[in-house]
Protein backbone atom coordinates (compact mmCIF):
# COMPACT_ATOMS: atom_id res chain seq x y z
CA UNK A 1 0.00 0.00 0.00
CA UNK A 2 1.24 3.45 -0.85
CA UNK A 3 0.09 6.92 0.02
CA UNK A 4 -2.34 8.19 -2.61
CA UNK A 5 -0.91 11.09 -4.56
CA UNK A 6 -4.20 11.82 -6.32
CA UNK A 7 -6.25 11.83 -3.16
CA UNK A 8 -3.65 13.93 -1.33
CA UNK A 9 -4.11 16.42 -4.14
CA UNK A 10 -7.89 16.28 -3.62
CA UNK A 11 -7.39 17.05 0.08
CA UNK A 12 -5.00 19.88 -0.71
CA UNK A 13 -7.40 21.33 -3.25
CA UNK A 14 -10.06 21.22 -0.53
CA UNK A 15 -7.76 23.13 1.83
CA UNK A 16 -7.13 25.76 -0.84
CA UNK A 17 -10.77 26.03 -1.90
CA UNK A 18 -11.79 26.57 1.72
CA UNK A 19 -9.57 29.67 1.76
CA UNK A 20 -7.04 28.23 4.19
CA UNK A 21 -3.70 30.04 3.86
CA UNK A 22 -1.77 28.84 6.89
CA UNK A 23 -1.13 25.26 7.95
CA UNK A 24 0.64 24.02 11.05
CA UNK A 25 1.74 20.42 10.92
CA UNK A 26 3.95 17.64 12.10
CA UNK A 27 5.18 15.50 9.22
CA UNK A 28 3.84 11.96 8.99
CA UNK A 29 3.72 9.36 6.22
CA UNK A 30 0.13 9.87 5.10
CA UNK A 31 0.66 13.63 5.04
CA UNK A 32 3.85 13.59 2.96
CA UNK A 33 2.33 14.73 -0.33
CA UNK A 34 0.08 17.24 1.41
CA UNK A 35 3.03 18.84 3.15
CA UNK A 36 5.04 18.89 -0.08
CA UNK A 37 2.17 20.63 -1.83
CA UNK A 38 1.95 23.18 0.99
CA UNK A 39 5.70 23.73 0.93
CA UNK A 40 5.76 24.32 -2.83
CA UNK A 41 2.77 26.68 -2.80
CA UNK A 42 3.85 30.34 -2.61
CA UNK A 43 0.39 31.31 -1.34
CA UNK A 44 0.51 28.90 1.60
CA UNK A 45 2.49 29.23 4.81
CA UNK A 46 3.48 25.93 6.40
CA UNK A 47 4.75 25.77 9.97
CA UNK A 48 6.27 22.48 11.03
CA UNK A 49 6.24 21.95 14.77
CA UNK A 50 8.37 19.81 17.08
CA UNK A 51 5.33 18.40 18.89
CA UNK A 52 1.69 18.71 17.89
CA UNK A 53 0.44 20.55 20.97
CA UNK A 54 2.42 23.58 19.79
CA UNK A 55 0.22 23.66 16.72
CA UNK A 56 -2.83 24.31 18.92
CA UNK A 57 -1.18 27.50 20.17
CA UNK A 58 0.06 28.49 16.72
CA UNK A 59 -3.41 27.93 15.25
CA UNK A 60 -4.95 30.05 18.02
CA UNK A 61 -2.49 32.85 17.23
CA UNK A 62 -3.32 32.60 13.52
CA UNK A 63 -7.03 32.67 14.34
CA UNK A 64 -6.63 35.80 16.49
CA UNK A 65 -4.72 37.29 13.57
CA UNK A 66 -7.72 36.64 11.32
CA UNK A 67 -5.95 34.09 9.12
CA UNK A 68 -8.00 31.04 8.03
CA UNK A 69 -5.88 28.07 9.02
CA UNK A 70 -5.81 24.33 9.61
CA UNK A 71 -3.77 21.77 11.50
CA UNK A 72 -2.41 18.65 9.82
CA UNK A 73 -1.49 15.94 12.25
CA UNK A 74 -1.50 12.23 12.95
CA UNK A 75 -4.03 10.93 15.44
CA UNK A 76 -1.23 10.23 17.92
CA UNK A 77 -0.35 13.90 17.68
CA UNK A 78 -3.97 14.78 18.36
CA UNK A 79 -3.79 12.57 21.46
CA UNK A 80 -0.61 14.41 22.51
CA UNK A 81 -2.41 17.76 22.18
CA UNK A 82 -5.36 17.22 24.47
CA UNK A 83 -4.44 19.77 27.14
CA UNK A 84 -3.95 22.48 24.53
CA UNK A 85 -7.30 21.62 23.00
CA UNK A 86 -9.06 21.63 26.38
CA UNK A 87 -7.29 24.49 28.17
CA UNK A 88 -6.77 26.83 25.25
CA UNK A 89 -9.22 26.10 22.43
CA UNK A 90 -12.24 24.96 24.45
CA UNK A 91 -11.54 27.27 27.41
CA UNK A 92 -11.24 30.41 25.25
CA UNK A 93 -13.66 29.32 22.51
CA UNK A 94 -11.04 29.18 19.78
CA UNK A 95 -12.10 27.30 16.62
CA UNK A 96 -9.64 24.76 15.20
CA UNK A 97 -9.80 22.78 11.98
CA UNK A 98 -7.89 19.57 12.62
CA UNK A 99 -7.22 17.29 9.67
CA UNK A 100 -6.18 14.09 11.39
CA UNK A 101 -4.55 11.09 9.72
CA UNK A 102 -6.40 8.15 11.27
CA UNK A 103 -3.61 5.62 11.58
CA UNK A 104 -4.08 2.34 13.41
CA UNK A 105 -7.62 1.60 12.31
CA UNK A 106 -9.37 -0.72 9.78
CA UNK A 107 -6.73 -2.50 7.72
CA UNK A 108 -3.80 -1.37 9.87
CA UNK A 109 -0.93 -3.86 9.56
CA UNK A 110 1.40 -2.18 12.07
CA UNK A 111 0.75 -3.06 15.72
CA UNK A 112 2.30 0.16 17.05
CA UNK A 113 -0.40 2.32 15.54
CA UNK A 114 -3.37 0.30 16.71
CA UNK A 115 -4.06 1.63 20.21
CA UNK A 116 -4.00 5.20 18.95
CA UNK A 117 -6.35 4.24 16.15
CA UNK A 118 -8.76 2.48 18.44
CA UNK A 119 -8.92 5.35 20.92
CA UNK A 120 -9.17 8.34 18.60
CA UNK A 121 -12.94 8.33 18.13
CA UNK A 122 -13.75 7.68 21.83
CA UNK A 123 -11.47 10.58 22.85
CA UNK A 124 -13.12 12.91 20.31
CA UNK A 125 -16.52 11.89 21.68
CA UNK A 126 -15.31 12.27 25.26
CA UNK A 127 -14.23 15.84 24.54
CA UNK A 128 -17.48 16.60 22.75
CA UNK A 129 -15.61 17.53 19.58
CA UNK A 130 -17.57 17.34 16.32
CA UNK A 131 -15.93 15.06 13.78
CA UNK A 132 -16.48 13.41 10.41
CA UNK A 133 -14.70 10.66 8.52
CA UNK A 134 -13.23 11.54 5.12
CA UNK A 135 -13.29 8.49 2.84
CA UNK A 136 -14.19 9.79 -0.60
CA UNK A 137 -11.88 12.08 -2.61
CA UNK A 138 -14.92 13.52 -4.37
CA UNK A 139 -16.38 14.67 -1.04
CA UNK A 140 -13.34 15.62 1.01
CA UNK A 141 -13.15 19.17 -0.38
CA UNK A 142 -16.67 19.93 0.72
CA UNK A 143 -15.97 18.32 4.10
CA UNK A 144 -12.95 20.58 4.69
CA UNK A 145 -14.89 23.69 3.73
CA UNK A 146 -17.74 22.69 6.02
CA UNK A 147 -15.28 21.92 8.83
CA UNK A 148 -13.98 25.50 8.65
CA UNK A 149 -17.50 26.93 8.49
CA UNK A 150 -18.68 24.89 11.45
CA UNK A 151 -15.55 25.53 13.55
CA UNK A 152 -16.04 29.27 13.08
CA UNK A 153 -19.78 29.27 13.76
CA UNK A 154 -19.55 27.00 16.81
CA UNK A 155 -16.24 28.47 18.07
CA UNK A 156 -15.15 24.88 18.64
CA UNK A 157 -12.34 22.63 17.49
CA UNK A 158 -13.58 20.21 14.84
CA UNK A 159 -11.86 17.16 13.38
CA UNK A 160 -11.88 15.57 9.96
CA UNK A 161 -10.48 12.05 10.16
CA UNK A 162 -8.50 11.15 7.04
CA UNK A 163 -9.04 7.41 6.64
CA UNK A 164 -6.97 4.68 5.00
CA UNK A 165 -9.60 4.42 2.27
CA UNK A 166 -8.82 8.02 1.31
CA UNK A 167 -5.09 8.22 2.00
CA UNK A 168 -3.80 4.90 0.61
CA UNK A 169 -4.07 3.48 -2.89
Amino acid sequence: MTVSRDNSLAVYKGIKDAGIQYVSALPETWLVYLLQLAEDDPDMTLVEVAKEEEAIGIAAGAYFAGRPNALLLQNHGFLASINGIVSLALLYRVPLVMLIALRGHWGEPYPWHTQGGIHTEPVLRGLGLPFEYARDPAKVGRQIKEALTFANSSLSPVALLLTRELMED
Partner: protein
Amino acid sequence: MKRADCIKALYPELEDRLVVTIMGACAQELYDLGHRENFFYLEHAMGLASSIGLGLAMNLPDENVVVMDGDGSVLMNLGGLATLARYRPPNLTHLIFDNGSLLSTGGFVSHTTSGVTDLAAIARGAGCPNVTLVASVYDFMAAAAEAFENKVMSTIVAKVEAVGPDHYGMDMKLPENAFRFQRYIEERRRSRP
Protein backbone atom coordinates in the same frame (compact mmCIF):
# COMPACT_ATOMS: atom_id res chain seq x y z
CA MET B 1 14.85 41.65 40.84
CA LYS B 2 11.11 41.16 40.92
CA ARG B 3 9.08 40.23 37.84
CA ALA B 4 6.44 42.79 38.89
CA ASP B 5 9.08 45.57 38.71
CA CYS B 6 10.14 44.44 35.22
CA ILE B 7 6.54 44.38 33.99
CA LYS B 8 5.85 47.77 35.57
CA ALA B 9 8.90 49.31 33.90
CA LEU B 10 7.92 47.79 30.56
CA TYR B 11 4.20 48.61 30.79
CA PRO B 12 4.35 52.01 29.03
CA GLU B 13 6.11 50.34 26.08
CA LEU B 14 3.30 47.81 25.64
CA GLU B 15 0.65 50.26 24.53
CA ASP B 16 0.56 49.22 20.89
CA ARG B 17 2.10 45.76 21.07
CA LEU B 18 0.22 42.47 21.14
CA VAL B 19 1.03 40.89 24.48
CA VAL B 20 0.48 37.23 25.39
CA THR B 21 1.17 36.20 28.97
CA ILE B 22 1.28 32.88 30.76
CA MET B 23 -0.99 32.00 33.65
CA GLY B 24 -0.98 33.05 37.26
CA ALA B 25 1.33 35.66 38.75
CA CYS B 26 2.62 36.99 35.44
CA ALA B 27 -0.88 37.55 34.05
CA GLN B 28 -2.09 39.09 37.30
CA GLU B 29 0.82 41.51 37.61
CA LEU B 30 0.23 42.82 34.09
CA TYR B 31 -3.55 42.99 34.57
CA ASP B 32 -3.17 44.89 37.86
CA LEU B 33 -1.30 47.69 36.05
CA GLY B 34 -4.40 48.19 33.94
CA HIS B 35 -5.88 45.90 31.33
CA ARG B 36 -5.56 46.87 27.70
CA GLU B 37 -7.39 45.37 24.76
CA ASN B 38 -4.09 44.22 23.26
CA PHE B 39 -3.34 41.89 26.20
CA PHE B 40 -4.19 38.18 26.11
CA TYR B 41 -3.74 36.14 29.27
CA LEU B 42 -3.32 32.41 28.71
CA GLU B 43 -4.53 31.24 32.11
CA HIS B 44 -3.86 27.56 31.39
CA ALA B 45 -2.38 25.36 28.63
CA MET B 46 1.12 25.88 30.04
CA GLY B 47 3.81 26.19 27.38
CA LEU B 48 1.63 27.48 24.58
CA ALA B 49 1.97 31.25 25.11
CA SER B 50 5.06 31.32 22.88
CA SER B 51 3.26 29.22 20.25
CA ILE B 52 0.36 31.70 20.22
CA GLY B 53 2.95 34.47 19.85
CA LEU B 54 4.47 32.66 16.86
CA GLY B 55 1.07 32.29 15.16
CA LEU B 56 0.35 35.98 15.76
CA ALA B 57 3.75 37.28 14.68
CA MET B 58 3.91 35.21 11.47
CA ASN B 59 0.45 36.31 10.39
CA LEU B 60 0.71 39.96 11.45
CA PRO B 61 4.06 41.20 10.12
CA ASP B 62 3.02 44.82 10.76
CA GLU B 63 2.39 44.22 14.46
CA ASN B 64 4.89 43.72 17.26
CA VAL B 65 4.28 40.74 19.52
CA VAL B 66 5.56 40.29 23.06
CA VAL B 67 5.27 36.97 24.91
CA MET B 68 5.67 36.97 28.69
CA ASP B 69 6.70 33.45 29.55
CA GLY B 70 8.06 31.68 32.62
CA ASP B 71 10.52 28.90 33.39
CA GLY B 72 7.80 26.39 34.30
CA SER B 73 5.90 27.04 31.09
CA VAL B 74 8.98 27.04 28.85
CA LEU B 75 10.09 23.73 30.38
CA MET B 76 6.74 22.27 29.28
CA ASN B 77 7.34 23.24 25.65
CA LEU B 78 11.07 23.11 25.00
CA GLY B 79 10.40 21.91 21.46
CA GLY B 80 8.58 25.19 20.92
CA LEU B 81 11.90 27.04 21.29
CA ALA B 82 13.22 25.07 18.30
CA THR B 83 10.09 25.94 16.30
CA LEU B 84 10.53 29.63 17.24
CA ALA B 85 14.17 29.43 16.17
CA ARG B 86 13.24 27.85 12.82
CA TYR B 87 10.66 30.47 11.85
CA ARG B 88 12.04 33.39 13.95
CA PRO B 89 9.59 36.15 13.07
CA PRO B 90 11.49 39.44 13.49
CA ASN B 91 8.48 41.08 15.16
CA LEU B 92 8.47 38.68 18.12
CA THR B 93 10.04 39.33 21.51
CA HIS B 94 10.06 36.40 23.91
CA LEU B 95 10.45 37.39 27.57
CA ILE B 96 11.10 34.48 29.91
CA PHE B 97 10.80 35.34 33.60
CA ASP B 98 12.85 32.68 35.34
CA ASN B 99 11.98 32.55 39.03
CA GLY B 100 13.16 28.97 39.45
CA SER B 101 9.80 28.07 40.85
CA LEU B 102 6.37 26.76 39.96
CA LEU B 103 5.14 29.71 41.98
CA SER B 104 1.52 29.82 40.88
CA THR B 105 1.01 26.13 41.55
CA GLY B 106 2.50 25.74 45.02
CA GLY B 107 5.99 27.20 44.84
CA PHE B 108 7.89 24.00 44.14
CA VAL B 109 11.36 24.61 42.79
CA SER B 110 11.75 24.16 39.04
CA HIS B 111 14.70 22.65 37.18
CA THR B 112 16.25 26.10 36.74
CA THR B 113 16.83 26.64 40.47
CA SER B 114 20.49 27.08 41.47
CA GLY B 115 21.55 27.15 37.84
CA VAL B 116 20.92 23.45 37.23
CA THR B 117 19.13 24.16 33.96
CA ASP B 118 20.11 27.20 31.94
CA LEU B 119 17.17 28.41 29.83
CA ALA B 120 19.25 31.01 27.97
CA ALA B 121 21.66 28.25 26.94
CA ILE B 122 18.74 26.06 25.86
CA ALA B 123 17.26 28.90 23.79
CA ARG B 124 20.67 29.50 22.16
CA GLY B 125 21.11 25.79 21.59
CA ALA B 126 17.67 25.62 20.01
CA GLY B 127 18.96 28.20 17.55
CA CYS B 128 17.15 31.28 18.82
CA PRO B 129 19.06 34.40 17.74
CA ASN B 130 19.72 37.33 20.03
CA VAL B 131 19.30 35.67 23.45
CA THR B 132 20.08 37.84 26.47
CA LEU B 133 20.29 36.92 30.14
CA VAL B 134 19.56 39.73 32.61
CA ALA B 135 19.35 40.06 36.38
CA SER B 136 18.51 43.74 36.98
CA VAL B 137 15.58 45.90 35.92
CA TYR B 138 18.00 48.28 34.20
CA ASP B 139 19.50 45.47 32.11
CA PHE B 140 16.03 44.07 31.44
CA MET B 141 14.84 47.42 30.06
CA ALA B 142 18.03 47.89 28.03
CA ALA B 143 17.59 44.41 26.51
CA ALA B 144 13.90 45.05 25.85
CA ALA B 145 14.67 48.39 24.16
CA GLU B 146 17.20 46.65 21.93
CA ALA B 147 14.79 43.81 21.19
CA PHE B 148 12.05 46.25 20.18
CA GLU B 149 14.47 48.14 17.91
CA ASN B 150 16.05 45.06 16.36
CA LYS B 151 14.56 43.45 13.31
CA VAL B 152 15.48 40.07 14.75
CA MET B 153 13.47 37.76 16.98
CA SER B 154 14.74 38.30 20.51
CA THR B 155 14.67 36.22 23.66
CA ILE B 156 15.30 37.76 27.08
CA VAL B 157 15.72 35.47 30.06
CA ALA B 158 15.18 37.52 33.22
CA LYS B 159 16.24 36.01 36.53
CA VAL B 160 13.62 37.09 39.05
CA GLU B 161 12.62 36.35 42.63
CA ALA B 162 9.97 33.73 43.32
CA VAL B 163 7.37 36.20 44.54
CA GLY B 164 3.96 37.04 43.15
CA PRO B 165 0.80 38.95 43.93
CA ASP B 166 -1.23 38.31 47.08
CA HIS B 167 -4.46 38.03 45.11
CA TYR B 168 -5.75 36.53 41.89
CA GLY B 169 -8.73 37.44 39.78
CA MET B 170 -9.83 39.53 36.86
CA ASP B 171 -13.03 41.36 36.05
CA MET B 172 -13.23 39.59 32.72
CA LYS B 173 -14.30 36.13 31.61
CA LEU B 174 -11.66 34.11 29.77
CA PRO B 175 -13.50 33.84 26.41
CA GLU B 176 -14.30 37.55 26.70
CA ASN B 177 -10.55 38.23 26.79
CA ALA B 178 -10.13 36.17 23.60
CA PHE B 179 -13.05 37.90 21.84
CA ARG B 180 -11.83 41.38 22.74
CA PHE B 181 -8.23 40.60 21.83
CA GLN B 182 -9.30 39.36 18.42
CA ARG B 183 -11.54 42.38 17.88
CA TYR B 184 -8.68 44.73 18.78
CA ILE B 185 -6.47 43.08 16.13
CA GLU B 186 -9.23 43.20 13.53
CA GLU B 187 -9.94 46.88 14.15
CA ARG B 188 -6.24 47.73 13.95
CA ARG B 189 -6.03 45.90 10.65
CA ARG B 190 -9.09 47.68 9.26
CA SER B 191 -7.88 51.13 10.33
CA ARG B 192 -4.53 50.63 8.60
CA PRO B 193 -4.36 52.26 5.16
